[in-house]
């Protein structure tokens, strides 16, 4: 009897040891799995928000929760964070409430002495709490909330340019290739995600993000025209009877009204060899500027860096059609509006008209504070856009036309006009006194056979009777109209808890 009990005791000891050992091992493996799982859950939250910040995203906040972010691209204040919440199974997620299950304690640490977390703060639901994903039989990533807020030097505890004055102020931080607090470029947003697993594992990860501008050709002239040695020279014909039509590279100002150096009025660019060929190309364009009475008054309307008429050769990158075509494709992929003539909105094949463009950009929310990127994959005729026609208000943003652009001088456009592809601009309407503020870039990269081997000669041919005031170079509108592709990750950091 005693022996049996003794043996049983020994066996029990061994069994307990094995159970403890296997339990410890399972626990260790589980911890690692939790650590990895919660990390990726938090990353999922960050990435969802990064995607939804893009207005072009189908689930963008602009589409799903209008008013969630400041309208018209206005900066998001540091002390006014907004939250994307992702409750599971009916739980309450209220990070702004210190008494809630998942409070945002990090905010008060970052903004200690600056402000306290507004209670409540604006919130939107994650895509996992919206149709159709909320109908899935399994839960989405287990992040609880994602906070979006602006940042300042003080909240970052970092001195940024351009002053580097060792004083950390509360001005919003922007990004123009480097962080700055001089309102240059796009606002930097801080995106912070908390993920919590059912076993209690939790992690806070943080991005700083900012929209990335698409690389466009530099705008060194109010009107830039392509041409090449192996292609053809650019052609320009000003409205011969219009003494007020002007293309001006001077008088440029930044968005604060400060004067900026003059740019070229009309620039010719492309692969040319030899001064003689360049001069021929420049003179060819000059010959299209009328010198009707009184004397050369019309030519004096083309002012910029050089003597009038200011037509100069420019040295620019993007010297081949394929390079420009790549830019076009990038813009198309991230544009607010893409119109393909011949579609339902443009019943007449191959050409879109003013109402098509106006309807599309209005739907996209175009305004002076929210310039849009609009692409017409084909011909565009904006005749009757403005007063006397449809009476549409000015356009704002980037307008890309890959076919022929039929302009109307009662159209007012503030921003960038790219005519890349067929590279042809003309008119059918005459009346109007409006102007394009920004820059116009016309390049011929294609013909009926497809992509050209060399840049062709851009064509801007207005008839003699066309009215209108022409083109004014404007750096402010160029900057505001700069299209962006996505929100770039400027930094990533795991916050110790």
């Amino acid at each position, binding site marked *: 009897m005693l*022996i049996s009990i*003794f*043996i049983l005791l*020994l066996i029990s*000891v*061994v069994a307990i*040891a094995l159970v403890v*050992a296997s339990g*410890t*091992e399972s626990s*260790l493996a589980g*911890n*690692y799995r939790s*650590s990895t799982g919660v*990390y990726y859950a938090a990353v999922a939250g960050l990435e969802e928000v990064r995607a939804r910040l893009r207005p072009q995203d189908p689930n963008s906040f602009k589409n799903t929760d209008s008013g969630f972010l400041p309208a018209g691209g206005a900066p998001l204040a540091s002390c006014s964070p907004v939250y994307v919440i992702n409750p599971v199974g009916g739980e309450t997620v209220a990070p702004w409430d210190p008494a809630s299950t998942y409070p945002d304690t990090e905010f008060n*640490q*970052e903004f*200690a002495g600056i402000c306290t977390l507004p209670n409540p703060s604006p919130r939107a639901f994650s895509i996992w709490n919206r149709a159709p994903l909320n109908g899935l039989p399994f839960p989405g990533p287990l992040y609880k909330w994602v906070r979006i807020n602006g940042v300042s030097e003080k909240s*970052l*505890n*970092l*001195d*940024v*340019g351009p002053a*580097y004055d060792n004083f950390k102020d509360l001005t919003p931080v922007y*990004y123009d*290739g*480097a*962080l700055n607090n001089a309102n240059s470029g796009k606002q930097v947003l801080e995106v912070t995600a908390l993920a919590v697993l059912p076993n209690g594992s939790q992690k806070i990860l943080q991005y700083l993000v900012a929209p990335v501008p698409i690389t466009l050709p530099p705008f060194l002239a109010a009107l830039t025209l392509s041409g090449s040695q192996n292609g053809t020279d650019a052609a320009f014909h000003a409205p011969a009877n219009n003494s007020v039509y002007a293309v001006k590279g001077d008088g440029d100002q930044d968005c604060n009204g400060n004067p900026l150096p003059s740019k070229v009025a009309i620039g010719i660019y492309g692969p040319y060899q030899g001064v003689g060929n360049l001069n021929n190309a420049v003179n060819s364009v000059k010959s299209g500027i009328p010198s009707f009475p009184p004397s050369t008054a019309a030519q004096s309307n083309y002012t910029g860096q050089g003597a009038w008429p200011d037509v100069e050769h420019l040295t620019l990158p993007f010297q081949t059609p394929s390079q420009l075509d790549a830019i076009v494709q990038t813009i198309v992929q991230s544009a607010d509006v893409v119109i393909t003539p011949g579609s339902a909105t443009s019943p007449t094949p191959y050409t879109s008209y003013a109402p098509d463009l106006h309807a599309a950009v209005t739907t996209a929310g175009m305004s002076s504070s929210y310039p849009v990127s609009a692409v017409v994959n084909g011909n565009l005729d904006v005749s009757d856009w403005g007063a006397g026609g449809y009476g549409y208000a000015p356009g704002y943003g980037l307008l890309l036309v890959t076919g022929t652009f039929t302009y109307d001088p009662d159209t007012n456009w503030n921003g960038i006009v790219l005519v890349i592809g067929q590279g042809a601009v003309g008119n059918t309407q005459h009346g109007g006194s409006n102007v394009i503020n920004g820059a116009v870039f016309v390049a011929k990269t294609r013909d009926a056979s497809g992509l050209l081997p060399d840049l062709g000669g851009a064509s801007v041919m207005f008839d003699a009777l066309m009215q209108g005031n022409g083109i004014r170079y404007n750096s402010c509108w160029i900057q505001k109209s700069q299209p962006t592709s996505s929100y*770039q*990750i*400027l*930094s*990533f*950091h*795991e916050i*110790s808890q």
Partner: protein
Amino acid sequence: MNLAPSDRRHLGFTLIELLVALGIFLVITGAAFTLLDSSQKHYQSESQVLTSFQEARLALDQIVRDVNDAGYPPPTFASTDPTQFASTPFAWSPNYPGTPCQIGTGAGGTCGTPGDFDLIIETNPNPKDPSCAPCPVQWIRYQLQLPPLVQVPTLMRGMAPKFGNNPSGAFTGANALVPFVQNVVNSPAQPIFSYTCDTSTPPQSPPLPCTIATTADKSPANIRDVIVTLIVAAPVPDITTGQPRVVQLIGRGRRVNPNQ
């Protein structure tokens, strides 16, 4: 003499019976204690393996976390003070911060660090710590050291404030490396650290192992992933086979911060 049945019950055991009983008892208890001793040794051995496993797991977690954070804050935070931003996610030697060396494996490449058993991460682990304002960027180094520098092969770890142009020389004095994981038995054929590098030539491809990347790509500034392979032996070999008991853990850290 005939005894009454009631008297027979008081006669006791014979000597032979006692000896047999004692023998059986000794055999059984001997076997039991042998089993107990064996169990205890197994238990101790398993405990040591688990301890090694736990140390290795914690180490792997820490390395992966440091790699994920590498390069914070990035150069786009541009300050005039280089101690306030990471010039590169991973520091190198020689020629830091000049022309980057070439990552290789074994005797290949020109990098002293990063290498198969040496890695220096440049990051600010706690930028908003109110106790140090401004908190400088740190160099975090992982380096395998072998006897006689240490008693057993040991993965060392250390942190040193970023200062000057010699990251590999920064870990002295108060910033000296300290033991992080002991009994690391990675061999040259099983490096602790291996790397993937971003590809710069369009079209943008997924990162490639740095050792087969182009010369332009196999730069420490271009590292995207650090694959960590930790092979750790328990202090005592297996009691039955005499062979070392090892655990092998593999993890991957991905640098998210931009490198420029």
